[in-house]
């Protein structure tokens, strides 16, 4: 029994769980990190990281067998031969789509921190006051001044490269030297600046790849193979960054194959006393006990766990008293943008494969502008030389064609939008008690859609992209208009939102469950609004801040 007692339990080992484990163990708490999937050991288990392109039998593509085995993952780029082992099995862990929702999951130690896009942006005061200003959903229970030091704390530890651009809607942080724009991107940025007189800007992306050595991690080697796991530890992941720090304290236990099925609520103390775990390999059940529980299972699974922890006191789940648990699901909507050819740079190229692109911060609905929708979007993109010239028909086969194949292709420039999605009460997840997963557990039903505000915004996302590339002198600009299925952004947020009022929110301003004060939810579930920036950096900052608060409350014996 003694072996099952800890000071703290962390559920999940991804971006948020890794941070919770690091902070808790560094503050001296004996902590167990429970991960539902297998272990992936840093470097050793990155089995494809050092393969050359020709060593992948299908060159990284997808086989019919893979398409058959992964009915959800096949909907977008994640289904590929190079890192298939990092994606959860759709068949073992099905979910019900009341409406189409693309849910791409990573069930292993490190979670999606191994495969994430690494773009690392802060939310601004404009984002944190947006709900209050627009009179929708609930207000964020904190302001930028409270988050700012935690962003800095996180950026210093994980290593983020970027430039300080002085843009109000995209606050500057603590950065390592920025990566470099290539020659075409520099020119496009300059032309945009001139054309829009600074109202729309193209800056270098800010990403969690280190450009200087950091502790035992080597700076980025420009391989652009991050999604395979980095043998140099050059991008932030649980494995490269937070896990070694937590392990170094001697206070951490990691238990893979541990599906947490419920949080054990004690109605006498009105707190959680621990969790119940189903061993994914043996199907045995275990209980672990602790003073504090951090729920970092990813937005939808954190909501699932709380709902699955129903008691006679909370029949709809732990944290359900407000009626908001599982609701207000958000993502970033994408799949809209433009691309075209850039002429006049045939004698110019670049060297190395940069794992980062350019960024156009939000420019709509700012400074008094009012479109027919609220909020805004940003663009991510890049310029590069790909493919080969196909202009001359006679050169399409034979010796000349063969030569052309080994020349650098034409320059192209493309940008794609990331739009803010509003928190709607009826975009939600519920337990589907009619179906079970491989382990006999009820599955989630997801009922989520883009609504008018997003659909109107997408028109601007398309038209502005075309207009901006044309203004920058890009030729043959073509708009790209995808369907924007929610989930595709892989930025699920909002199913256990923070707030100032226990009647309308699941968590308080410290990510503490109103209904059980020693339970903290610090992943994307806590988000009150989405902004249009990539959200992971905010999860890290919220997690570090919540642990600091939790430990001080523990010391004061308030929880």
């Amino acid at each position, binding site marked *: 029994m003694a072996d099952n007692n800890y000071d703290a339990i962390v559920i999940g080992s991804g971006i948020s769980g890794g941070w919770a484990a690091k902070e808790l163990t560094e503050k001296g708490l004996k902590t167990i990190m429970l991960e539902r999937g297998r272990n992936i050991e840093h470097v050793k288990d990155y089995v494809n990281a050092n393969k050359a392109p020709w060593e992948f039998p299908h060159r990284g593509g997808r086989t019919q*067998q893979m398409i058959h085995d992964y009915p959800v993952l096949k909907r977008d780029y994640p289904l590929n031969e190079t890192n298939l082992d990092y994606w959860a099995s759709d068949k073992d862990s099905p979910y019900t789509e009341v409406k189409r929702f693309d849910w791409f999951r990573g069930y292993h130690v490190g979670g999606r921190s191994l495969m994430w896009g690494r773009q690392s942006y802060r939310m601004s005061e404009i984002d944190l006051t947006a709900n209050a200003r627009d009179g929708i959903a609930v207000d964020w229970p904190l302001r930028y001044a409270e988050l700012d030091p935690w962003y800095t704390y996180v950026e210093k530890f994980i290593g983020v490269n970027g430039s300080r651009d002085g843009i109000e809607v995209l606050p500057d942080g603590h950065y390592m030297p920025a990566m470099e724009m290539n*020659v075409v991107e520099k020119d496009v940025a300059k032309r945009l600046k001139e054309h829009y007189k600074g109202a729309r800007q193209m800056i270098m992306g800010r990403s969690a790849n280190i450009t200087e050595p950091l502790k035992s991690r080597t700076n980025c080697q420009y391989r652009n193979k991050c999604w395979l796991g980095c043998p140099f530890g050059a991008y932030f992941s649980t494995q490269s960054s937070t896990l070694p720090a937590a392990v170094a304290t001697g206070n951490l236990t990691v238990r893979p194959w541990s599906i947490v099925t419920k949080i054990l609520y004690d109605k006498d103390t009105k707190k959680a006393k621990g969790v119940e775990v189903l061993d994914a390999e043996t199907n045995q059940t275990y209980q672990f006990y602790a003073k504090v529980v951090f729920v970092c299972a990813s937005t939808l699974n954190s909501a699932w766990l709380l709902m699955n922890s129903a008691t006679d006191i909370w029949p709809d789940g732990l944290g359900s008293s407000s009626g908001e648990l599982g609701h207000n699901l958000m993502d970033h909507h994408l799949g809209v943008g433009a691309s075209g050819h850039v002429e006049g740079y045939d004698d110019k190229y670049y060297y190395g494969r940069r794992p980062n692109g350019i960024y156009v911060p939000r420019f709509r609905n700012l400074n008094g502008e009012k479109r027919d929708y609220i909020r805004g979007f940003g663009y991510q993109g890049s310029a590069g030389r790909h493919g080969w010239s196909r202009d001359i028909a006679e050169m399409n086969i034979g010796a000349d064609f063969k030569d052309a194949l080994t020349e650098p292709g034409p320059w192209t420039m493309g940008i794609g939008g990331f739009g803010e999605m509003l928190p709607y009460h009826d975009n939600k997840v519920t337990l589907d008690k009619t179906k079970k997963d491989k382990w006999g557990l009820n599955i989630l039903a997801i009922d989520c859609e883009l609504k008018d505000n997003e659909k109107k915004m997408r028109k601007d996302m398309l038209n502005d992209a075309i207009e901006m590339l044309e203004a920058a002198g890009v030729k043959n600009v073509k708009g790209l208009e995808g369907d924007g299925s929610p989930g595709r952004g892989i930025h699920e947020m909002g199913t256990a939102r923070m707030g100032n009022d226990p009647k309308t929110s699941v968590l308080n301003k410290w990510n503490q469950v109103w209904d059980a004060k020693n339970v903290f939810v610090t992943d994307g579930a806590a988000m009150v609004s989405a902004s249009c920036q990539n959200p992971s950096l905010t999860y890290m900052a919220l997690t570090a801040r919540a642990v600091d608060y939790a430990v001080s409350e523990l010391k004061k014996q308030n929880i």
Partner: protein
Amino acid sequence: MDRRTVIKNLTILTAGVTLLPSCLQKQEKALVHLKNFSLKASQEKSIASVVDTIIPKTDSPGALALGVHLFVLKMVDECYSKKDQQNFIEGLDQLDEVMQKNYGHSFYECNIKQREDTLLALEQQKGFPTALITFYKILKYRTIQGFTTSKYVLSNELVYELVPGRYNGYFPVKVVNLPSKKNA
């Protein structure tokens, strides 16, 4: 004649009987092993010949020598739907029919000019059956992919560095140009 000799002769004869008719009918099976559909040897030869015509041997190895036709077949076998595979075979047979009609031979038996003329006409995509166009699109796309990602090309032409080590946003093309070009 002792018994052993008789058995030996019989064996040879039996083997000959089974081999002979298939040779005459040109229906021997292809050498490549496929999981999801099968090819006749003549079909395999035509595929190899199309690949060879698209990217021929010059002062450097062509696609055939780099085994690109085998890559193409692996991809068609494992990465395409049944329907695409049927289209592929049907289109391949249509190509050989076109060659038989125009030149009296299968694609692989035609001379280089006949083969090139036919593929250049196919590039225009007009006046050919849909299956043939589909076949050619799949085959050409996978030929280019197999060639440009082959070990030879990525080691000698478009040199692939596993660890570039740095990024330089502006690099003159001449320096990037490749050993074989400089020597030419």
